[in-house]
């Protein structure tokens, strides 16, 4: 079944929400695993989001213009002897889309989001 244009799936809401939460805490950009961990913590879940679920949702959000991404500086990754990260940023469109979503996030058991100044 096709969803209505403009509506967000729970995983997409969770990604945008977690991305904005990270930004609020001073982390402008995030990589895939960081957002999976953030979602797990925000939802007080036991498990990290599945690879396919996470990256498919990131792909959809980027295609829809709600996220932007870029590869990090290779020298930085080489200096830390780790693979290069793809770094995502929530766009203004993503923020507006999330602002239209009634909180709390479906299926989530978040920290007191509104009190922390997140979009309501």
């Amino acid at each position, binding site marked *: 079944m096709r969803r209505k244009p403009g509506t967000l799936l729970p995983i997409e809401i969770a990604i945008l929400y977690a991305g904005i939460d990270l930004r609020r805490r001073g982390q402008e950009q995030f990589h895939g695993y960081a957002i999976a961990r953030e979602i797990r913590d925000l939802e007080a879940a036991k498990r990290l989001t*599945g690879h396919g679920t996470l990256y498919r949702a990131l792909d959809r959000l980027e295609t829809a213009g709600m996220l932007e991404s870029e590869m990090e500086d290779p020298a930085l990754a080489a200096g830390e002897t780790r693979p290069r990260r793809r770094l995502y940023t929530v766009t203004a469109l993503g923020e507006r889309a999330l602002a239209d979503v009634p909180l709390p996030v479906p299926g989530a058991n978040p920290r007191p989001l509104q009190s922390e100044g997140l979009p309501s």
Partner: protein
Amino acid sequence: MISQTTGPANPPGIATAVALAWVRIYTLGLPDAVRSRRIEEIHSDTWEQWSDQRDANMGAAEIGAQTLSRLIRGAPADLLWRTHLGGLHVNIHVPIDRIAGLFLLLLVAASTLSFSANGYDTRAGEGFANELERLAAVSGWQASSYVILQVASAFAMIVGGAVFYLQLRRKAPAMSLIAALALITAGIVSLVAASLYGTAADLADEWRAASPENEQSVRVVARGFLVALSFVSPIGQLALALGVYGLAFVTSKYGLVPAKLNLLTLGSAGCLAAGIIALPGDWEVPWMFFAGAVMLLLVWLLIAGAWLLFGGGESAKSAALQPGLPTLPGGV
């Protein structure tokens, strides 16, 4: 150029290797840029997870289990994502006649090897008792090899029949359907025959080791299996012969294999007919004809299979003539 995921930055563990292998599999055939991006992301993700959880003093086994769990839970989304990007057809163009050729060669190889593995002994006498003795003399590995090769032959017949039907259904729908059904029937009968043979071989061993009071009952059951096998085998061979004759006719008519190869199938059909006519007489005469028919069929399968697999000048042409034909994943 697809990114490499080997080197010092690879997190250890089988689960990571499985996750990286999985992403390489489901991204096969996608444009390099899309494929590289997904591989790099999963590579980075598994590394970050390993690094983060190791810092949290988590054991390697638990990290591996979580990685596998993420892989499995995300696999349906991976496949949906892959399908959304163009299904299994993107950038993969394997002419289906090459696949068909491959199955013909597999059939030849499995059939030929199974002849030497079935333990047939020209010195053995005729009759049920001798057949039971012969089977009891066949070693366990030999009987198992024969069954495996028979199953491989059956697989080649069933899949080969389906592939040929897909290839030829637009040009010769009725004939290709008949040939495919005959091949698939031969394959199913071969599976039944392999099962009967395997059971009969086990019973023969049991019969040899049986105590005098059990010997008769084992003998009766074994006889039942051997009688069934003696009915089933000719049906399978006849279905295979009809399937191959049909294929030979259609493939030569549409230029997939050289028309001269029809001499082989005509010779084989002639031998088969002569064998059937000679059946009422001494068994040796029809047996020679049937053996000749089988040999000629194998030669046809060998040449036609190699011709289709390695191109023969027709592969590209047939693929170009049938742009709507299905293509299969992989790098055959």
